[in-house]
């Protein structure tokens, strides 16, 4: 009997491989997996019944593979690597990652310690890393065409609009999303862009799915804010740096007052719901982080000052002059989502240095790299390339990889799910044919939650 159920388990695993893996869209994959489950429930009992078993017997028979041979039924995909960067410990030579049918990592380790169930689809690569994370993007709200019709990252009717949700403007089928995915980016923290005092909310998505719902990881992550003269280019006021800070302080004070009134025990005295203030309250109470784009020294200092006054969770964005304020940043314990390494040395970023990521990292500051916002050509950057440039300018290979995996995951609050290859985390992987950062290496396969989402070396 146990032999029979083991076979049933193997058949099940094969079925999962056949049905689920070639599916391009995760949503369809999920559907198929669901129908497979019901098929197992309807067909296997029938065959067991034919063997003269009662209902209680087949329940035990079905449970057996789960209880005694969990890996046999479960493995959806195995990935073998000459060098496996788990980002949770030292790289593993000759490593294996096993991903279960739920899309989660089941097991990670040296090949000798990981049993790959027979029939499991197995991929092999020289280097394997976790799926890459773009810690701050506008892709999906901003499209490649760069015409007003596909630019939804910045609303210019008011400089303070934190109520704008990223989920209401994300195009999961945007070609730039597919472009990033093809270069190994599986998770993006995207949403409203820089350019307003509060431009709106950000969210976290996987670079998959046909709809925002299918892509979604976290629907509201941060509120995007910008300090400095770029805001004045689009709005009548603020026209100066200090006016911008004054307006932000007023907004936070108003939200504090709103929160106090909302807490009134007498419900008749509570003010009507206000989407704008509600969102700022969520920043004040720490449910949403404040993502402040600040490049120049005075702007970064102003961001730290605001943080001290209102106590919100601050994440610095851009921060091209941050290497001049390393002690201050360290003291404040603020993580930095640093501008793309190859940002143009113009305007606010004229002091950008290729070595900033290394300097911040060496000082113990948590750093992630971003594609950021691009107004022109290229319409997005690719964090793999930006991290490579940082690795060529003082950052160790593993620290550079951390800026687009585990450290990025930490900053966007998703390190329990993504950013490293550990049991229970998402089975997001990138397969390379060489050093991920070498210009002439290729991303050969990209996997999101156990499913191949991009193939063909590029």
């Amino acid at each position, binding site marked *: 009997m146990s032999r029979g159920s083991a076979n049933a388990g193997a058949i099940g695993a094969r079925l999962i491989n056949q049905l689920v893996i070639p599916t391009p869209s995760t949503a369809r994959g999920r559907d198929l997996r669901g129908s497979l489950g019901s098929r197992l429930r309807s067909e296997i009992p029938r065959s067991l019944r034919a063997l003269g078993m009662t209902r209680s017997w087949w329940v035990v028979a079905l449970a057996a593979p789960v209880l005694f041979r969990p890996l046999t039924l479960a493995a959806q995909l195995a990935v073998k690597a000459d060098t496996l960067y788990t980002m949770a410990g030292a790289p593993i030579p000759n490593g294996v990652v096993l991903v279960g049918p739920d899309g989660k990592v089941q097991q990670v380790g040296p090949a000798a310690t990981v049993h790959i169930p027979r029939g499991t689809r197995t991929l092999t690569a020289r280097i394997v890393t976790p799926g890459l994370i773009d810690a701050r993007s506008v892709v999906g709200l901003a499209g490649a065409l760069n015409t007003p019709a596909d630019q939804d990252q910045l609303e210019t009717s008011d400089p303070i609009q934190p109520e704008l949700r990223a989920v209401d403007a994300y195009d999961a089928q945007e070609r730039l999303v597919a472009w990033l995915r093809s270069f190994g980016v599986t998770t993006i923290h995207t949403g409203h862009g820089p350019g307003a005092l509060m431009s709106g909310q950000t969210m976290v998505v996987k670079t998959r799915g046909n709809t925002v719902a299918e892509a979604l990881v976290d629907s509201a992550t941060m509120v995007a804010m910008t300090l400095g003269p770029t805001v004045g280019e689009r709005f009548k006021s603020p026209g100066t740096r200090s006016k911008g800070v004054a307006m932000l302080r007023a907004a936070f004070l108003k939200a504090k007052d709103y929160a106090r009134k909302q807490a009134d025990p007498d419900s008749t005295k509570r003010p009507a719901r206000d989407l704008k203030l509600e969102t700022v309250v969520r920043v004040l109470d720490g449910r949403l982080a404040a993502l402040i784009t600040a490049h120049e020294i005075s702007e970064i200092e102003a961001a730290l000052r605001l943080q001290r006054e209102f106590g919100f969770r601050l994440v610095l964005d851009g921060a091209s002059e941050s290497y001049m304020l390393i002690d201050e940043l360290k003291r404040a314990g603020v993580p930095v989502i640093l501008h793309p390494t190859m940002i143009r040395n113009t305007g606010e970023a004229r002091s950008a240095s290729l070595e900033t990521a290394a300097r911040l990292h060496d000082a113990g500051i948590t750093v992630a790299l971003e594609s950021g916002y691009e107004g022109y050509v290229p319409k997005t950057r690719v964090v793999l390339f930006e991290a490579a440039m940082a690795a060529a300018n003082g950052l160790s290979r593993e620290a550079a990889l951390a800026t687009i995996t585990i450290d990025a995951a930490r900053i966007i609050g998703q390190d329990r799910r993504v950013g490293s290859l550990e049991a229970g985390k998402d089975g997001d992987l990138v397969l390379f044919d060489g050093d991920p950062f070498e210009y002439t*290496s290729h991303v050969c396969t990209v996997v999101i939650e156990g499913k191949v989402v991009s193939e063909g070396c590029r």
Partner: protein
Amino acid sequence: MLIRPWLLLLTSLATAPLAAQERPVALTGARIFPVSGPVIENGTLVVQGGKIVAVGRTGSVRIPDGAEVRDARGKILIPGLVDTHSHIGDGDGGDRSAPIQGDVRVLDAIDVGSDNVKRARAGGITTVNIMPGSGHLMSGQTAYLKLRLGKSINDLLYCSDPLTEICGGLKMANGTNPRGAPPWPGTRAKAAALVREKFLKAVEYRRKLELAKTDSTKRPERDLEMEALVQVLDGKRTVHFHTHRYDDILTVLRLKQEFGFKLVLHHVSEGWKVAREIAAAGVPCSIILIDAPGGKLEAINLRMETGAVLDSAGVLVAYHTDDGITDSRFFLRSAALGVRAGMSRARALEALTIAGAKMLDLDDRIGTLTAGKDADFLVLSGDPFSTYTHVEETWVEGTRVFDRSRPEDRQYATGGFRLMRDFEAGDDDGDADLGGGR
């Protein structure tokens, strides 16, 4: 009287520093990519008087007496890079008065002391074609510069006298950048018609010049634009044509067919769609590599594979920076990503050096490490196409113009506090080219 010989000697000693470049320099033990031939694993390069004296295997190359011998073991030597399309030097070009301004010279507006010129040296660029912008059908005359250390544009020009010589090419553009309200063209067909009309005028002007050879009274009045266009018709001035979409590329090929000018296609985002046609026309392509498509409609189908596709179709391919669209410091990277997308390493290296030299008609002087050519070369820390490689030294005509070990030079490679000038890329039609639209 007796003192005189001593005076002479003193004089010669005093001038010794000036004559230092005359002292031969030999770099030995390096891995040399001469581009003109196979890699030399343990090679020696000898330069003197601004020229390459010898290049070959260490031991087989004679090192002249008195040469400064430098141990270059572990280093890679390649020719100085040729950037066929750049906007360094903060130059401009035609103004908003007309869409065709063939009389305007970018050399009248270049600041050779600009920080982005220093950045280009840090990126290993030794020869550059500085272009006016692409917001015009014809935005002006380009300038071919050697990035010597110099205070004046005259120190950097390839030509010796801008008053009597041709010092660059002619910049033209089609597609969306030169569009606008009249007198700018509103459609593609109108753009082509305006350009054809102008060239027909030049044909007529040239005919009058011919007639004047026998009858000087028939000599037409001097017309600066017509003079430049006659140089184009005569094949003495190359047209550098900004064009993205495949149909716009074909329009340029039609213009070339009609007027017979010497042509280099620039950007060529959709060149992969019409590679055969470009090859059949025998026209070289100076291309850009961007990290992602889009940002402007014409670049939506831009691919990293363009270099490989054009090359295998038999087209001469060079990369360019279009600085500030891509940064001069990352020029090697453009070709490296071309290799990633299928180009051979050898061709990619040519696309940074000799191919561009050919497009600027300078291949007799630059583009390879060959005895007799200008001593323009780079000392690299590693493989030319590796991410981790740095340009350690850039040499122009036997002089080191960038040295990464000098802090004041190094900052132009890495960036530094308040180092770069505060200018906006693409802020007007005279700036960066992909960004030259309005």
